[in-house]
């Protein structure tokens, strides 16, 4: 979002004559490129990450953990009365998940497998390939993030577009935005020029919270990095804790992506998509019947 630039064009949109629209330049080219590169990176990171998870589908807390050590999450398969079934065990609660988690079909055959083929990369079991792809895209993801971070700081993008203003954080305003959001009433007119405060806080939470946590817990899984920065083990309480936090944080990122895509669709998918591709975002004036 770039408030300083002038509207590109200020003519009425032909196809919807009832509403007047002006176009603003919403996303800078760096934002757009890094956004789509992130889509590619996160897709491969999540799918290859689940491939890696499948090699040992249990999560522990602490410095060590394997097999019989206490696990707080296990995805597995077991057999009762000659019929195999898949389950997810969280603490002492076991949920049947046959067909999806623990046991699913691989080329028509029921196979014990934590995450099914359509959620892993490669689709078939191949830990070595999963790791190769995971680490390649981890590098691209980090470099992309650093470029965006540098851009955001230097250009003023973070200060201007993402930092909530004092009045936005006032309880009354904050509450109204939550209510509007819940009723799926999205800002129009002048207000649509800026991110609303919930967007700002979410984006800041993802960029300053989830993503650094993702990277740091990932690094803690590396025995080399643990030797270089032993403090990582103290911060996260051990390599197995870090592995669990890596998985939980990734799950939260998936939740973010689902909500993000849902919001894009609900608040005008074409306008949003165009603005993230070409940068141009249409703002419709409020007066007719909006």
């Amino acid at each position, binding site marked *: 979002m770039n408030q300083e630039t002038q509207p590109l064009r200020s003519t009425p949109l032909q196809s919807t004559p009832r509403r007047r629209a002006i176009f603003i330049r919403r996303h800078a080219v760096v934002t757009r490129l890094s956004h789509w590169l992130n889509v590619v990176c996160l897709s491969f990171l999540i799918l290859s990450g689940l491939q890696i998870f499948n090699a*040992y589908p249990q999560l522990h807390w602490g410095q060590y*953990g*394997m097999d019989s050590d206490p696990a707080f999450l296990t995805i597995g398969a077991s057999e009762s009365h000659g019929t195999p079934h898949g389950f997810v065990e969280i603490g002492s609660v076991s949920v049947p998940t046959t067909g999806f988690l623990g046991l699913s079909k691989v080329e028509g055959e029921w196979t014990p497998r934590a995450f099914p083929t359509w959620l892993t990369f*490669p689709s078939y079991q191949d830990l070595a390939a999963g790791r*190769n792809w995971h680490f390649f895209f981890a590098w691209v993801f980090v470099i992309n993030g650093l470029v965006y971070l540098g851009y955001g700081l230097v250009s003023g993008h973070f200060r201007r577009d993402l930092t909530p203003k004092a009045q936005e954080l006032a309880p009354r305003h904050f509450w109204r935005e939550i209510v509007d959001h819940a009723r799926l009433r999205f800002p129009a007119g002048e207000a649509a020029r800026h991110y609303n405060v919930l967007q700002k806080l979410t984006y800041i939470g993802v960029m300053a919270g989830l993503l650094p946590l993702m990277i740091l817990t990932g690094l803690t899984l*590396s025995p*080399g990095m643990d030797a*270089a920065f032993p403090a990582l083990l103290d911060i996260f309480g051990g390599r197995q804790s870090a592995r669990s936090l890596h998985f939980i944080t990734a799950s939260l990122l998936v939740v973010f992506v689902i909500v993000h895509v849902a919001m894009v669709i609900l608040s005008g998918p074409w306008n949003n998509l165009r603005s993230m591709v070409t940068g141009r975002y249409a703002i419709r004036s409020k007066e007719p019947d909006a």
Partner: protein
Amino acid sequence: MTDLKRRRFLISSALGVSALALSGCDRLEQSPEVGGVIRSAEKLTMSAQRLLLGRDALAREFAETDISPAFRVNGTSAPDGEAYAQLVEGNFANWRLKIDGLVDRPLELSLADLKKLPARTQITRHDCVEGWSAIAKWTGVPLGSLLAATGLKPSARFAVFHCADELEKTLDGSGRYYESIDLIDAFHPQTILAYRMNDQELSVGHGAPLRLRVERQLGYKQTKYIMHIEIVDSFAALWGGSGGFWEDRGYEWYAGI
């Protein structure tokens, strides 16, 4: 095109592209060109880690109370074959560790010889490439002290560990376990040839009579059943040419991650 038609076209092409992407994904992995690019990240990882690690940064050493109750016997649980069976029967009295290759003075050491040398004991975490970790106490001879005694030739670059176990049965013997590390890791103070684990003689399951501990790397580097250490300038001529059993099957040679 009208707006609606254009939207329909865009939606169907988007669906088409994602279907193609899903089926094409596995093909991406199987393409040698793409694979080459993807695997180039290993060099970046290794350079970055070596820069951050330096030569001597130590892996975390734990307290006795941190030792984990279970330690999975991984890979081979007992090597096949008459030769190894006889070694076990004789309590490894007839076993000899050979160190040769690009050295001035090749060595042949018995287990008793090794146990007379200054030893190092460390309680460290073993990280399997699959994701699990276990902590154990290891006692053994620092590899660096043995290599120093042999006098490495200037061309020496890697230590290759030839093992007694065959993890995959093949006609040409390429299923035999082997591994390699470079001299930075070979001379790292925590890199030891361990003959004791958790205050017991090393069991057959865990690699008797001798296994490698190279603590800043993953479990598949920690070779068991070591018979012969060969100093080389390149491992290209060995088996698959990638420097180790799992490396020949797609895993990274640098296993610090």
